[in-house]
Structures are given as C-alpha cells and as structure tokens.
C-alpha cells in the first residue's frame, strides 16, 4: 500500500482530503475576518499553510484512534472530522459549539471523532497522549494516539517526560512535530541548539522521521508507517513535518521578524496548490474535479459560518454545568 503513488487513496478520498484542506484554509480566513469584527474573543492562533500536516496525518488514522493537539488546533480538529459549523460556533462562544462555549479557540475538542483535546499550555498534552495510549494498550482496543505539537514544545519538560515514558512503555503514540520554524516570535535557531528536531528522539531510542510537511501524501505515508509500528506493539514514533505558518503567532503578531522573501518562498510551496497540482497528475482526476472540490469547500464554509453566527450564546445560568460529572 505504501508503495502506491496515491498512498492507498482512491480518487474520491483524494478529492475529499483536498476539500478538507481548502475548508481548513477558508475556515481560518473566516476566523480572522470574524476576529476583526470583534466576534472572536481574546486571541486566536491560525494554521494557514500547515494544512497538509494535519490532513495528511489524520488521514492515516483508523476509527477509534485518538488525536490531541495544540492551541493552533482548528485544522487538526477539523482534519479528524469535526463539523465546520459547531467548530466555528465554539470559536464564537456559542452554546452549539463543540464545547458549549466553555473552551473557545484554544480548546476545540470533539471526542466523538477522536479529537480528544486542544491544549493551550505548550507541551502539556504530550503526557495526555501517553495516557490515551496507555488506556488503549491496557484495554486492548488497538487504537493509536496521535499527538501534534510545535517545534517550540520540544524545549519544554513535559515533552521529554512523555517521549521517555512512551518509549519505555512502548506506548502506541505517534508524536508529530509541526516544525513551522518559529516558537511564537523567535526563530528556532535562537532557542534550540539542534536544527533537526528528530535528533531529540534518538535520546529515547525512538524511531524518527523527517518529512516535507507541505506534501500531504508524504505526511500520510510517514504516519501510516508509524501507525503500523505502534499498532504492532513496537512503540512510538516521532515525525517532524517541516512546514510554515502564513500568519503570525497570534492575532497580535504581524510577524515582522521574518526575513524578507521567506513567506513568499513558502507560499510558492503552498500545500493546497501543491496537492492540486499532484491530483491533476492522477489518471482519473481532472482539473474540473479539483475545481468542484474547491467550490464545495467554499460553499460548506460559507454555510457553516452563517449557521454559527446565527446560533445563540450560552445561558449564563448554565455556567455551573459540567464542572463535575457527579454534581
């Protein structure tokens, strides 16, 4: 399957993944627009440019697998199959939101599709993913846990504790580092003495692989290999996906620290454009199919945003709900 140039995907799934990438891009553009209209509170961390990592990686998972991610997590949660409208509603703080408006942009969670949480303290969810993996191992479900994190997380203690524990217990975890070259405002070289983050895995005797994070099929293949290994009892893998965020760290960051021309260079390697070009090489996919998928994505996002904006805010009287399971 892995030798297949289409990584085991038929035309319909290929176009489906393309559509999801476009939906994530447009969703993030809409979050930015709504933010500028003061409909999104506080801050928001967008992932335009990183869509191939999350869509490619999540495409390699099986039903029952569990994913956790960071506060730059809209794309990852959508890649697991969370609905566009309820995801946007959460970011807008609406009752119909995935988390009933209790979480917001940084905490999108949809347990029903295996999106187990977006964590807003850097690195905090790597131990969490060890826990979901331990449960799967102990209960014999065969599920694998996939954990997305950024390059910045590789310098925090929880990263090292989780990598070590996962390796020593051979937990079925796939650690996917989205290396977008900047930890908040700082270029990676200013904060990290190694440039290839996969070298970090070596100290935990963990298999590691570096892939082009803007190439959806390359990411998918790497995660398929890691999944097979984890499900086979061989323990965790670290994957470093090289990518780039088109926007700043958060809404207050115009990203003026980037060297001239860097953004433009990466935009020439836009993951959506790259995948569109790749798809057009497929014997059974033509340019109209790609255009149709793009149009379907545009319509879906527009409808979802309209619905989400119209939904009501939560009732303040219900704010005490769900602190406890047993109230």
């Amino acid at each position, binding site marked *: 399957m892995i030798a297949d140039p289409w990584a085991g995907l038929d035309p319909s799934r290929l176009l489906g993944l393309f559509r999801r990438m476009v939906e994530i891009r447009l969703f993030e553009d809409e979050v930015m627009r709504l933010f500028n209209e003061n409909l999104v509170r506080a801050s928001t961390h967008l992932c335009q440019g990183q869509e191939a990592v999350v869509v490619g990686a999540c495409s390699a998972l099986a039903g029952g697998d569990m994913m*956790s991610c960071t506060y730059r997590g809209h794309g990852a949660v959508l890649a697991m199959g969370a609905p566009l409208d309820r995801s946007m509603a959460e970011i807008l703080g609406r009752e119909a939101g995935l*988390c009933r408006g*209790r979480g917001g942009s940084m905490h999108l969670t949809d347990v029903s599709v295996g999106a187990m949480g977006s964590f807003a303290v850097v690195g905090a969810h*790597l*131990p969490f993913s*060890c826990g979901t993996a331990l449960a799967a191992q102990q209960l014999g479900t065969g599920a694998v846990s996939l954990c997305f994190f950024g390059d910045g997380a590789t310098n925090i203690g*929880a990263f090292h*504790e989780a990598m*070590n524990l996962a390796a020593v217990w051979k937990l079925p975890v796939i650690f996917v580092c989205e290396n977008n070259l900047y930890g908040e405002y700082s270029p990676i070289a200013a904060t990290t003495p190694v440039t290839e983050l996969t070298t970090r895995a070596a100290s935990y005797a963990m298999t590691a692989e570096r892939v082009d994070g803007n190439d959806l099929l390359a990411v998918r293949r790497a995660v398929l290999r890691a999944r097979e290994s984890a499900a086979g009892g061989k323990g965790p893998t670290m994957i470093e996906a090289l990518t780039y965020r088109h926007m700043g760290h958060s809404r207050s960051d115009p990203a003026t620290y980037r060297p001239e021309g860097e953004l433009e260079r990466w935009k020439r390697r836009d993951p959506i454009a790259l995948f569109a070009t790749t798809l057009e090489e497929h014997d059974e996919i033509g340019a109209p199919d790609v255009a149709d998928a793009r149009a379907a994505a545009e319509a879906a996002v527009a409808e979802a945003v309209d619905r989400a904006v119209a939904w009501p805010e939560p009732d303040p009287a219900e704010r005490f709900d769900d602190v406890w*399971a047993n109230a």
Partner: protein
Amino acid sequence: MRGETVTYREAVIGALADELDADPAVVLIGEDVGAAGGVFKATAGLFARFGGDRVRDTPISEQAIVGTVLGAAVAGLRPVGEIMFADFAGVCYDQIANQLAKYRYQTGGQATVPATLRLSGGGSLGFGAQHSQCVENWFLNIPGLHLFVPGTPADAYTMLRAAIRCDDPVLVFEHKALYSLRGELRDESDTPAFGRAEVVQSGSDVTVVATQLMRHRSAEAAELLAADGISVEVIDLRSIAPLDVDTVLESIKRTGRLICVQESPGPGSWGEALVAQVAVRAFELLDAPPSLVAADPIPLPYAKALEDATIPSVKSIAEAIRHTLSS
C-alpha cells in the same frame, strides 16, 4: 477488610487492592509503586498480586504521571497515580491545576475524568522543607478537584475507595506520620457520605476543627482539658473540597466558639477559609472571635527542636483553646 483493625498503611494497600480486584479498569502508576512496593510501602504486595501491567513503575517524571493519569481516565481507565512526596506536586502543578482540573469543563462535559492522585504529605518526621508540607491548600481555589485528607485507617480505606470510584478527579493526601497508626475499619453500612466531616468527639464549650496529624493532637489536647472540666468538640473535616461547613456550623450552634488547627501556614488555607465562612454565615452564633492555630509562616526547618516549635503541638492547641474560652 471491613471491621478489621489495621494500620493506616494497610488501609491504603487494602483499598487499592479491593479496587484493583473489583474493576479491571483500575491501574496504579507511580515512582517505585510496583516492584519496590512504594517508598512508604503503601503499595506493598500489589505488584506481585496484580502484575506489572496494572501496578506500573514510572520514571521520575511527575508531569508524565499526572498527564498519563488524565489521558487514561478520559480514554476508559480508572487510574490512580502516586506522587511520592506531596511536595512534588510543584513539579506537575500545571498538569493538576490546568489540565486535570479543567478538562471536563473546558470540553463542555464531553468526557468524565475518573482520576485519583495519591500524595504523601505532612511533617513532624524531620524531612525538611521540601518533603514535609501539607500542600492540599495549594489546590484550594481551583474548581474541579476534590481534596481528601484522611486522618485514620478507617477514613484512609473508605475515602480512597470512594476517590477511585468517583467520576471526577480526586487528590487524596495521605499523611506520612500516620502510616503506622492503628485503627478499626468501618462496616460497609457505616460508609460516610462523600465529603462529610466527622464529629470525632462531642463537647459543649468550643469547636476545634482539624485534619490528619492535627486531628490527633487536637483530640489529645481535648483530653488534657477535660481534666479541667473543659468540654471540647473535635471535628475532623476529612475533605477540604468539598468543605463541610454545615457540620461545623451545627457544632458552633452549641459551643459558640471556633478554633481551626492546621499543620500548614495560615495564608490562603482551608483554616482561613473556614474562619471566613463561619464569620460570614454565622457571625451571630459566635461568643468569641474565631481563631486559627497554624504553622509559623516559615519554610519547615529540619532540626527537631525547630520543626516541633513550628507546627502546632498538643500544648499550643490547648493554650489556644484556653485563650478562646477566656475571651
């Protein structure tokens, strides 16, 4: 184990064994909890009886322990993590305060978190400032955590079992100076209600509220004063979250006087909180100002003479009671 006379340590082991026996989803994890049986021998024999998959030794990685407990709880286990010395909660404070306590609420109640942490706290044994604290107060103003402080073998047994069966996170603070204390376990029918305080002994002149080691010192002080005809009611809170203010108020209706006795310093503690609540809710019941007998506000010193002077003693508690009665 019901009805037997055992040590506090044996009660802990018995509660863990009975829950491991009752529910295959229960798993213990922690540093040296397995083959070594725990540094306080509070998990002795469980590794041999239940095996290394269910009684798991971890690396010295408190963040990984707590994060794993959270993830495992969300994904179907009923894990019990051990933080060897409660003071090490400082190492994993984010995992407890930001992750474990908030997961359920932040996700709008999408999952339950049946997680238990056992932490061994308390002084009087000369372990110095970083291995002797009663750190339960560190968590007092974080919604989402139950905080249990059992002070007898009977409570160690029933409260640990209740914690493991609870579908919300519970931190159970064991007191390391009480592990060898002997006492009788309750009959099944006598299991206390969740979070309820215990009236240890009835009295009519003053209400003394304490936990763990201070409960025993307060009871001794009460015995001394009884010789002088002073009648002291001693209440053991057993849980500081929930905090059973009602039982305390009922007592004050009879005594008109309140003294809280705690092993940790005063600022930001349950003792201060209880004094404040009683003042707010029952000012008119008080015949004298409520008072707090607490540790001196200094890091707990090592030398016996210094440590003994720092935390409340039978003598200092008795003096405080006399003082309150004279005002």
